[in-house]
């Protein structure tokens, strides 16, 4: 405590600890620090096994894993920020992969139409989700679970196996790489930047935070809260649609079974891991991207080390719980409560 000695006041005068720490790292910085830490620890563990985490193959693996979840988590961030959530994203993704592949049906000329049809269908689902939540006042959990189940019913009865066929050019979306960076990752990052700008630089973005923070305050400030929520749901569903396009590009065909990937809950986990409050009003897409990357790095490291997948899930669960516990503590400590009298029992 040399610093304290140097600055020790001569009299007993000024009360201690009045200034709150002027330097506090933001939650987003913390998530990125955690990502770096996990990369370092992962690299050491992989190196101990005689392998290289940063080999081209492994980097591509990490980035490829992250882009699919990334699309969905970016959209999920928007709805969670306005205190909603979307459990239908997995089914939207599966449906969009089928719609895109079937509309294209191997014809190069139909590629734009296929993309448009898939994203348009996604937007309609998002619109329905948003309207059911805002107009029928159905809790978002139930509303999106409901639309998801309806889509599941359609997928299960109509599509026993893969359907449709995308074109060779469209498959580039799934497989092209710029050096080690897959095209899908680039698209995901572009979408992330667009999302960040939307939240920071547009009224719509500001209003998402307002609605999530306090709907009544937002309404009394003249914000059309319903429209904000519906917009967020449409954007979320379209992002899930983009994930569906990526699935179609990778598989070369549409697949109903991808809804089983569990990306609905995993995307919520990534958002929360990225520092966004599940109760809305605070957080952002930058953190979500880090959250997605953390989950992807863990997957890759565990795959390389060929560890029993059970332990992978245990660790992922633990990390998410610990992260949220840390955010909760930071939230508490952010309230100015100074300690006047140090020391415990006398």
């Amino acid at each position, binding site marked *: 405590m040399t610093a304290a000695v140097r600055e020790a006041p001569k009299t007993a005068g000024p009360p201690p600890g009045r200034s709150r720490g002027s330097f506090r790292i933001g939650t987003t910085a913390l998530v990125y620090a955690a990502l770096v830490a996990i990369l370092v620890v992962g690299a050491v563990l992989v190196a101990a096994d005689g392998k290289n985490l940063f080999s081209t193959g492994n980097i591509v693996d990490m980035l490829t894993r992250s882009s699919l979840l990334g699309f969905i988590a970016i959209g999920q961030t928007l709805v969670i920020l306005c205190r909603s959530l979307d459990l239908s994203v997995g089914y939207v993704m599966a449906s969009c992969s089928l719609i895109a592949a079937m509309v294209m049906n191997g014809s190069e000329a139909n590629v734009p139409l296929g993309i448009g049809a898939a994203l348009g269908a996604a937007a309609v689902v998002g619109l329905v989700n948003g309207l059911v939540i805002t107009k029928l006042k159905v809790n978002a959990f139930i509303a999106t679970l409901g639309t998801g189940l309806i889509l599941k019913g359609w997928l299960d009865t109509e599509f026993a196996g893969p359907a449709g066929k995308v074109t060779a050019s469209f498959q580039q979306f799934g497989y092209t790489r710029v050096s080690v960076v897959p095209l899908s990752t680039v698209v995901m990052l572009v979408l992330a930047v667009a999302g960040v700008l939307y939240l920071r630089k547009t009224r719509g973005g500001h209003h998402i935070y307002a609605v999530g923070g306090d709907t009544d305050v937002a309404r009394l*400030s003249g914000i059309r809260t319903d429209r904000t929520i519906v917009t967020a749901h449409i954007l979320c569903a379209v992002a899930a649609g983009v994930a569906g396009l990526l699935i179609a590009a990778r598989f070369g065909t549409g697949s109903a079974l991808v809804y089983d990937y569990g990306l609905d809950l995993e995307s919520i986990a990534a958002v929360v891991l990225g520092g966004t409050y599940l109760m809305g009003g605070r957080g952002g897409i930058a953190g979500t991207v880090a959250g997605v990357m953390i989950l992807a790095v863990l997957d890759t490291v565990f795959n390389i080390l060929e560890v029993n997948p059970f332990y992978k899930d245990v660790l992922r669960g633990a990390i998410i719980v610990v992260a949220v516990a840390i955010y909760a503590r930071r939230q508490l400590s952010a309230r100015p409560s100074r300690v006047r009298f140090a020391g415990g029992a006398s």
Partner: protein
Amino acid sequence: MTEPLLEMTGIGKSFLGVGVLHGVDLTVREGEVHALVGENGAGKSTLMKILAGVHRADAGTVALDGRPVSFAHPVEAQKAGVSTVFQEFNLLPERTVAENVWLGREPRRRGLVDSRRMAADTAALLDGLGVTDIRPSTRIRSLSVARQQVVEIVKAISHDARIIAMDEPTAALADREVGLLYDLVARLKERGVAILYVSHRLKEIFDLADRITVLKDGRLVDTMDTAATNPDELVKKMVGRPISAFFPDPLPGNGTGEVRLEIAGGGNTQLDGIDLTVHGGEILGLGGLQGSGRTEIAHALFGVAPFTRGRISVDGKPVRIRSPRKAVGAGLALVTEDRKTEGLALNQTVLANARLVLDAVRPGSASRRAKRIPEILAALELSSRGTGQEVRYLSGGNQQKVVLAKWLATDPAVIVLDEPTRGIDVGAKQAVYGLMRRLAADGVAIVLISSELPELIGMADRVCVLHDGRIAGELPGGSAEEDVMALATGHTPAAAGPTTPQTPDGAAKGAQS
């Protein structure tokens, strides 16, 4: 004679067929502070909400600058220059000051939000009010309640408000912070802004208001020039019955009895060297500025943030209180500062709330003890549509009575009342004061925490004043307000010497059995 800026004429409003306002007239002039007073349920809030565009009047007209207006939404009212600062702030805690001030109408440049201009404009507004310690980029969450209120007022001014209505603006402020609000009101007045000031605190009304309008049972009683009236007359008009003494005298009882509560050397991270004794039949007042440690003592006693040093005894028996549950078991009761979040389950019935502690802590005897609840509620003069009504539909005063009933049902030895009359009407205050006197006469030891000095001095037999987590001194009941403030602010005047040493030592010996 200034032209009236706002003229509300013959305003009537009813909810579900129940008349709340009947033909109320209100005229507000440019640059005046106009106080709106009346008991809870008198119709002040409804009148304010009609002005703010939250409710629509069923009858009557509202005219601004002589032109009739009708607001269907708060935003319309704001655009017309009428802003309202409600008791519950309309701020987003996770967003910055600037983002809150411009919420819903963020300035844009080429379609995108212009954050720089937003910050600059906010800074200019803050400067204009002489506020130097709030930055536009600060998150609301990290500001004190008083500063948040300043942000609300800045938000109102940003709408070029010509009338700012304030609902109980000092309810959440400490005495020291009230000064900040007074300055702000003075500055707004200089600018010609009219202020409609709703308050229960007579002192503020007489300090600030130019004119006073009194409402009772939804009807206009009178509008008076402040200079032409006095507090006694005003109170009479509000309640419609003369109140001989604002604070009731002690009832003849057993007098001051045995020591029921003793704290010796209590301390934790917020408190140090707390020595207190409270006798049965005694009301001990705890005074001090907001944050001086008054509520912290209540929380320490009740096991919310327990003492880590020192000891507590109740009725001579040493107790270790690690949780509220233990505190209830030891015979303590705490009426918390914030009844809506800490005192009541708002969507449950009167009866369920009144039984809450009994059911939780004394399930064995709950039913037997609960038989007394209707009687307790009747004694408190609770007005509700039966014990099956949900408490969220009750007025603040009646809600407080339910909280009190909840604790009285446990037959406490010591009851701690933290700001028991905050935000409740005059009639309910009288009921609380009367109850305190009755409890004292029954031998209960009472600790009263209050920010209102007259209440503290008028009700307490002794007043302990806290300053920065320690007891700064003790004064007898009925001391001068200045003496309490002197101790609370840490300036102990030389003259206060003789009144201070009311040694609790003699009493403390009795408890060391």
